[in-house]
């Protein structure tokens, strides 16, 4: 076989607490990111993603502690994103135990931050988040632009061009989120995912909008993604990680399990 399609549950964390997380397992403290991470480690998730959505600086400070405590008990790859604005932020997360750091708005403001991180700590740990919305009218060829602030603020930057630039600067992976799809459970924006995946040589993670297992399969077969990220379908117990792996295998794709 070849490298497996990765199934990545994503936990939103604010002020050190899980905002949207697992509520189906018997956890002592369902708001504790470390306990949730352990549950996913035990369930055989291929990687885990923490996305810090703290509004305050103090809230972000607790993230390092969470990453450190997670790395003490979970022996799986961990990507951490949200509010990373400098090489120093990235380094602190990596030293705390993150394997990869996802950079979002800082790379919109200054794409060269990807080169700064990759040059010092390697491309393998430099993930660029690409948050995009479709701006083309229905029926027109697809065109997407980068949006910041949770999809509320437009930038006028072409999403595919931005993604290619970040990969050329040294990003080792692209986390492509459709802000139109996020939270809708209507499936990934496959056209967006494919447009970016076909334009770069680094792995692409599909994100935003998963509602069922077929969406995960489509992300790979139609979106050309190397990894599929989802939140609600796992957190609410609709499907397990094993279900996701099985669906991928049944579609003829390489998956663990």
């Amino acid at each position, binding site marked *: *076989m*070849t*490298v*497996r*399609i*990765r199934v990545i549950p994503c936990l939103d964390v604010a002020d050190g607490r899980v905002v949207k997380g697992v509520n189906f397992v018997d956890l002592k403290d369902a708001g504790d990111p470390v306990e949730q991470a352990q549950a996913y*480690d035990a369930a*055989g998730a*291929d*990687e885990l993603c923490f996305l810090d959505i703290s509004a305050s600086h103090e809230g972000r400070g607790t993230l390092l502690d969470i990453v*450190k405590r997670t*790395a*003490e*008990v979970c*022996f*799986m*790859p961990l990507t951490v994103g949200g509010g990373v604005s400098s090489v120093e932020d990235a380094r602190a997360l*990596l*030293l*705390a*135990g993150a*394997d990869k750091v996802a950079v979002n708005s800082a790379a919109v403001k200054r794409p060269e931050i990807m080169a700064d991180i990759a040059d*010092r*700590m*390697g*491309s*393998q*740990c430099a993930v660029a988040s690409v948050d995009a919305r479709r701006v083309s009218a229905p029926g027109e060829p697809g065109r997407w632009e980068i949006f910041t602030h949770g999809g509320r603020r437009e930038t006028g930057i072409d999403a595919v061009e931005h993604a290619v630039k970040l990969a050329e600067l040294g990003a*080792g*992976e692209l986390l492509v989120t459709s802000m139109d799809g996020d939270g809708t459970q209507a499936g990934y924006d496959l056209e967006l995912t494919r447009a970016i995946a*076909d334009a770069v*040589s*680094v*792995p692409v993670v599909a994100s935003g909008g998963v509602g069922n297992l077929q969406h995960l399969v489509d992300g790979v077969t139609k979106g050309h993604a*190397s*990894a599929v990220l989802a939140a609600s379908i796992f957190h609410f117990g609709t499907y397990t990680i094993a279900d996701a792996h099985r669906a991928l295998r049944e579609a003829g794709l390489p998956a*663990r399990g």
Partner: protein
Amino acid sequence: MAEAIALIDYGAGNLHSVYNALNAAGAEHVTVTADPRLVRGAKRIVLPGVGAFGACREGLWSIPGMIEALQDSVIERRVPFLGICVGMQLLADRGLEHGTHEGLGWIPGEVHKIERTDPNIRVPHMGWNDVALTAHHDDHDLIEEGEAYFLHSYHFAAQDGADVAAMTDHGGGIVAAVARDNIVGVQFHPEKSQAYGIDLLKRFLEWKP
């Protein structure tokens, strides 16, 4: 295992994950150190490493006395040694990442960029993949068949097939593990490979090469 284990700290990243994983595997006296004296006194040595070959090489060689201490322990006194990721690649004669950099030269070979043989092959090679034993694995019972987590853009091209203990596949054969006498190097990350990785570290802690 109450033996003293030296986990070499040379500014090459994710040390704590390896430290935590060794502890989870049952190690009791892991010392994260940049002190050549502690390396000389250790019963087992682990060399981690993430990032670029050249940067890692520079970090390791810049510690006064470290290369001599490693040479004395691993080559002269045959102390069990485990290299992980770039720590494995440093075993080669040289690495060709951003220029040419000399390695430890303990296992003949060079470190090259992974070729993108078709559009489906993504670089970095990122994710879980096979650890498939070669015909030579019998000499080194440390590596077992299974799935492990890989994260790298360069790979170890060994000169002598007898040094290759396991292979994986990413657009062609990629060396997953090298082994010679008391030296083992793994391209994948045991500290990130859940039960497979912890089990490998357990075997390393008990390994008598």
